[in-house]
């Protein structure tokens, strides 16, 4: 690939106790592109995405081997502070999980704890900017002090995206961000991903082949802890190289 690489994993192995969840994953994720991870449940794609911001650190039984290099730095080296790392990497989950606070506070929370702004005016400006970037501001500007949980599912998910981008991350990880949303809310999020990719590197886990085909430029297919195939999305969905990939995306068995 000719583009600049943002994330590189080298010989990445992940174990939960004795069980190997990821086996020798070597993957390059290009900067300012959308990379989608597909594969059946339990194939390791969520485990993989959780390695990228060291979220697996919180699981005691989880052991990570190999390297994950983001901008030339191995994120598992001792000098890396996971809290600062996570400020660089935003994450959006399957189920929208706004804090039980107002819409404003949800977005202001990250910049506050990381001390990103110097005044209340500056903070307000950042919150509004983030809500605008997430395509939510126009819909909620009159009720910015209402609870985040009062929003619809699709709006909550966009609130979570606004919260993620408020801390100026470089990478956004999305773990099935649309699986709990209706088609319209999904379309709005996908439209937003198209917009966000101009400034962020995005890695998205999805169970919808059509969504992967629509939003991503690169697709990686995981199966039983292995990276079976990675390539340009268009290629993967029209003429995959591996039979395993083809069988999965076309829904075949036997």
């Amino acid at each position, binding site marked *: 690939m000719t583009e600049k690489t943002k994330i590189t994993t080298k010989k990445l192995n992940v174990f939960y106790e004795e069980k190997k969840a990821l086996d020798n994953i070597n993957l390059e994720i290009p900067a300012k592109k959308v990379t989608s991870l597909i594969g059946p449940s339990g194939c390791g794609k969520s485990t993989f995405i959780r390695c990228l911001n060291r979220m697996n650190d919180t699981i005691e039984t989880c052991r990570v081997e190999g390297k994950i290099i983001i901008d030339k730095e191995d994120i598992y080296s001792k000098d890396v502070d996971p809290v600062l790392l996570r400020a660089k990497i935003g994450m959006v989950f399957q189920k929208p999980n706004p804090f039980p606070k107002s819409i404003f506070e949800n977005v202001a929370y990250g910049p506050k704890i990381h001390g990103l702004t110097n005044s209340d005016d500056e903070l307000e400006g950042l919150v509004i900017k983030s809500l605008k970037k997430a395509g939510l501001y126009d819909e909620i500007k009159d009720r910015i002090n209402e609870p985040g949980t009062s929003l619809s599912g699709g709006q909550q998910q966009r609130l979570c995206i606004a919260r993620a981008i408020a801390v100026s991350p470089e990478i956004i990880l999305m773990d099935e961000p649309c699986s709990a949303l209706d088609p319209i809310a999904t379309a709005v999020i996908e439209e937003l991903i198209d917009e966000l990719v101009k400034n962020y590197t995005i890695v998205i886990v999805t169970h919808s*082949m*059509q969504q992967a085909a629509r939003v991503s430029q690169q697709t990686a297919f995981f199966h039983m802890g292995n990276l079976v195939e990675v390539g340009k999305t268009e290629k993967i*969905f*029209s003429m*995959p190289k591996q039979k395993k990939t*083809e069988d999965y995306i*076309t829904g*075949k068995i*036997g």
Partner: protein
Amino acid sequence: MKEHIVTTYDEDLNNLKTGLTEMGLKVEKQIFESVGLTKVINISKAKQIKRNDDEIDALETKIRKFATKTLSKRQPLADDLRKIIIALKISSILERIADHASNVASRILYVKKSPDSYHTDSIHQLGLLVIKNFSKALSSYEQQSEKIAETVPTQDVTINSVYETCFREHLHLMMEDRELIGFCTQMLFIAKELERIGDLSKVISREVIYNLKGKLR
């Protein structure tokens, strides 16, 4: 061959293939009958060929509707997607080929009878080559055979050179006998229709290869 988890999906794809193959066989018969007219003129047969063309148009519409429904219902990917795309393309090519066969019949209806001084069956020979190559293109689809598909473009080179020969031969006939000009002109149009069927058979073989290899040439 692996099967889909959803068995009705396999049924849909099989129905599409069967429908297209049936349409292909009907078109083959149309070409066969119209090529026959270049040897023995038969007005009632020519009229029949023209009438049959409506049936083929209806088959194309049926395939198109079915393919559209399958696309929206299954949202196919990879080889499944290619199967449906080529079914759409091939059905429209078959419809065009049937039009050419029907045009041959129209020309025959126009000339009504062959002049006594016309003594060549070169256009009929051209027609036989065209039928053979069309049949190969159709079997390459039915059997999903790259090997058969590869032979079609090669044979089309021969068809083109036979067409050129027919063309020159008819020019000479017209120069030698002015009485033949009207008839030979119609025969040249017929030759052109047949040559086009040859070209379109080649396009079918190309679609078959696309389906198997995923590459457009």
